[in-house]
């Protein structure tokens, strides 16, 4: 390709992503666009193709980003190259979203014609605006009976301040408005600017590990170009590699001779560790490096920690291997070995948020078939000791004794809750109960309010989201960002089973809530731990003081009454099942404790108070 061809090609490239709240129709719209641009025949097309992992499908959430190249013959008679970059739709992955948006010039904002804008959408729109993206509003699901496109159009204008007069009225499901969207992409989304002759600058916006090719980096060329055989350098880590292969997804990975300004595709270079292709990092030429990296790179830090332990202690090594494999694909996952008196050898793992944590747990149990015990998640506390030193604690059982502690600081977030008028009271009550400080309240329109609170992250990690959903009949949407550390009156709550302290059940709680939470958790544990052959007292203690107690009664009867008409195999199976049930429990001292019990601290909803 010569210079002129390149520049002609560049003129006809459009890079965009789709911003939408869960269920507002992002995946369906993506599918329709793929159909219209004939990226694949309908036979090839699996429903909702962009969400490729099982877990994503089940949860309706995109975790891994994808970038597809599409060819579109526009009404002006020219063929355009589209790159559709998919973004994850959950607050845990905000940074990844911001990087994939940084790879685009435009974004389609999909808003449900009945439900209007949600907090999550708003957060992503702001990310898009931060990245100077051209935003094309699309009002989707206009064929629903409850659709009110004019109200939503007004909302887009009032709330975000976008001109929504040309917003496309669409129904991705019914295939309405799709061409109009594609034409607007051609007309309104700017072509990439950048000099193909300049030194290489490519943004990494995702990566995954492929056992045959090593790390596959998802990149957007911002300046310069790259070809197989080029020597490249990762600017954050300084590591250098030689490019094996480059290409685009159509959506199959298809090798190319070169990637130039505006191109979005992949790059492989026998890279063994996703840690070397960090999201947000800049790839440049090792021979002719650029002076300055692309802005916006930061290392992702886990916000939430928990302990992961194999129920079967013999599978510790398997668990380590599972974590190592997952880490290949997930640079945000952190883990290091830890030991619990109650649970034995395991790992303290760091996650971007609760969803990230659950996904990893499920993948370990499902893909690696390791039964896990997960301890309740914890945030990272800054502990200032009386001797003037400072330590960070991400495992409640490691919290020093109260007398050694001068004060403790915990992470706070700014929580933005968008809710219909009628539920403002419920939201404020809940936020107050979760130690929130009221910051602001903005009326979005005559029916919806944006409520802003500062709140300890630990409260969010507990059951805030579930309670918010139930307290607002599912109408509230919610987003949060970390704002820093604040001092709090925190104490460590220990749980004793059969008079033995179970380190894995310890948790940190605000002093004022200690009594109440202690009471709830001992009752919860009483229900979750099955009867043993002896009576088991459960106690909750702060320091030496017992704040709550309960008792699991002894098992009284467990014997099959009859012989099932001579069906001995069935009898055997029943016994085997009972026995297997026990194997899924953890022996803590002399008490058999099921997996769920270790998460009990999370399930303390109001209804039980």
């Amino acid at each position: 390709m010569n210079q002129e061809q390149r520049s002609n090609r560049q003129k006809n490239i459009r890079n965009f992503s789709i911003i939408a709240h869960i269920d507002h129709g992002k995946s369906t719209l993506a599918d329709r666009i793929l159909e219209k641009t004939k990226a694949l025949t309908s036979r090839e097309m699996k429903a909702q193709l962009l969400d490729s992992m099982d877990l994503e499908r089940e949860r309706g959430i995109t975790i891994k980003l994808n970038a597809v190249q599409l060819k579109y013959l526009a009404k002006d008679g020219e063929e355009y190259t589209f790159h559709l970059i998919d973004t994850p739709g959950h607050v845990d992955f905000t940074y990844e979203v911001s990087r994939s948006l940084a790879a685009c010039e435009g974004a389609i904002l999909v808003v449900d014609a009945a439900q209007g804008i949600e907090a999550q959408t708003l957060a992503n729109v702001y990310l898009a605006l931060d990245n100077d993206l051209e935003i094309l509003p699309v009002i989707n699901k206009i064929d629903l009976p409850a659709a009110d496109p004019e109200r939503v159009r007004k909302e887009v204008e009032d709330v975000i301040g976008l001109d929504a007069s040309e917003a496309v009225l669409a129904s991705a499901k019914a295939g309405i408005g799709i061409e109009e969207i594609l034409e607007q992409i051609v007309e309104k989304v700017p072509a990439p600017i950048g000099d193909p002759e300049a030194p290489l600058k490519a943004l990494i916006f995702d990566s995954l590990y492929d056992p045959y090719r090593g790390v596959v980096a998802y990149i957007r060329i911002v300046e310069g170009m790259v070809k197989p055989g080029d020597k490249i350098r990762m600017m954050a880590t300084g590591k250098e590699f030689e490019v094996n292969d480059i290409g685009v997804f159509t959506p199959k990975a298809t090798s190319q001779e070169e990637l130039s300004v505006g191109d979005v595709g992949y790059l492989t270079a026998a890279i063994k560790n996703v840690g070397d292709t960090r999201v947000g990092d800049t790839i440049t030429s090792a021979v002719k490096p650029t002076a300055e990296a692309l802005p916006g790179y930061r290392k992702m830090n886990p916000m939430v920690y928990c302990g992961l332990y194999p129920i079967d202690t013999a599978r510790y090594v398997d668990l380590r291997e599972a974590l190592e494999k997952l880490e290949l694909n997930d640079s945000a996952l952190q883990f290091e070995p830890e030991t619990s008196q109650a649970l034995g050898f395991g790992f303290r793992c760091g996650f971007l948020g609760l969803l990230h944590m659950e996904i990893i747990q499920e993948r370990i149990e499902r893909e690696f078939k390791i039964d896990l015990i997960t301890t309740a998640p914890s945030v990272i506390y800054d502990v200032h000791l009386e001797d003037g030193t400072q330590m960070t604690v991400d495992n409640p059982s490691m919290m020093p004794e109260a007398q050694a502690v001068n004060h403790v600081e915990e992470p706070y977030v700014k929580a933005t809750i968008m809710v219909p008028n009628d539920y403002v009271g419920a939201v404020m009550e809940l936020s107050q109960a979760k130690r929130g400080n009221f910051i602001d309240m903005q009326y979005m329109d005559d029916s919806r309010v944006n409520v802003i609170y500062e709140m300890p992250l630990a409260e969010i990690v507990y059951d805030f989201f579930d309670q918010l959903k139930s307290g607002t009949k599912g109408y509230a949407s919610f987003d949060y960002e970390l704002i820093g550390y604040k001092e709090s009156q925190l104490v460590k709550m220990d749980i004793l089973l059969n008079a033995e302290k179970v380190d894995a059940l310890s948790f940190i709680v605000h002093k004022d809530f200690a009594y109440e939470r202690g009471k709830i958790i001992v009752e919860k544990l009483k229900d979750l731990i099955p009867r043993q052959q002896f009576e088991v007292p459960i106690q909750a203690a702060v320091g030496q003081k017992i704040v709550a107690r309960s008792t699991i009664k002894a098992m009284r009867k467990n014997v099959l009454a009859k012989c099932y008409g001579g069906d001995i195999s069935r009898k055997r199976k029943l016994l085997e099942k009972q026995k297997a049930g026990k194997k899924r429990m953890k022996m803590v001292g002399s008490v058999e404790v099921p997996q769920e019990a270790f998460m009990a601290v999370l399930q303390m909803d109001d209804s039980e108070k």
Partner: protein
Amino acid sequence: MTTAAYIHIPFCHHICHYCDFNKVFMKNQPVDLYIERLLEEIRMRTNTNQQPLTSIFVGGGTPTALDHVQLEQLCKGIAEILPFSSTIEYTFEANPGDLSPEKIQVLRKYGVNRLSFGVQSFNDELLQKIGRNHRGSDVYRSITDAQQAGFSNISIDLIYALPTQTLTDFEETLDKALDLDLPHYSGYSLIVEPKTVFYNLLRKGKLPLPGEETEAGMYELLMKKMKERGLNQYEISNFSKKGFESRHNIVYWNNDEYFGFGAGAHGYVNGIRYSNIGPVSKYMEAVSDMHLPTMNEHSVPAFEKMEEEMFLGLRKTKGVSISKFNKRYNEDLEDRFKEAIRDAQSKGLLKKENNHLMLTHNGKFLGNEVFQSFIGIIETN
């Protein structure tokens, strides 16, 4: 050689809320033809040099749901095909109220010498709740009729821990049952099984079962009352006067072999456990094609036999004879199950007396805890 048989009649006029056995509503079922096929299966599974049977148990379903003509067809056929030992225990399961004098006569005529009535409770309200069609008064009539016709070996089944049942209620039922002064009683705690009315109610949270404490209290009461009346508990759920232990029951607990005949029946013959095809039409089809109606077969390996010998044998009050076990398997029981024995003994659930291993009184309440530790531990090499 196999000298015990279970024969299954899968038809019922009413389906009880707790029953998960293979059964169908009798209406519009090809009952006559089923009996023919059933007899055909018995012929196929036995041969001319079959040793005389020492125990036959006809269960269901509801065997007494058959009319007296069908009953005669069945009993006559059985008597023609199977040789009986002179001391045979030949039991029919009976639904109180179903046994007309005519039916009783048929049973007598063909050598049936034991009746097992599914009484379950004497509380009519409870009977209705659990989907039984009979009432307490039917029990007296049926038993008197049977006794007058010459049946002396009669047993009744009781079920406890029924929904809403109280300890007092069970005590009343027990007293009424014991006042009948029968030679054999079975007392089963309700077990809610999948695919039953109760199971579905339980899942919806609409089955008010008494708690574990009450259930244990009922079991305690059952054992106490039986003892007071001189009835010996020979197995976890079974009580009898001396010499009236059910031979059919004992076959199972001794881990001995037995034929299973009929749709969905289970058998254990020549070291192979098998189950028959359950659906009546499929079962009949197979037999009419002169195929054995076997659905599953499992040749029990030695280690499983040993485990089964333990978890079945320990149900008996006298337990498992160590010397018999060692001889039967050419093994050392106490070495094979060292840890299971030590563990159960340390918890006070198991004891060793007169060269037998047996459950303690507490162990009878928590039998499954003991049985579990005896399975899945022998190396499968």
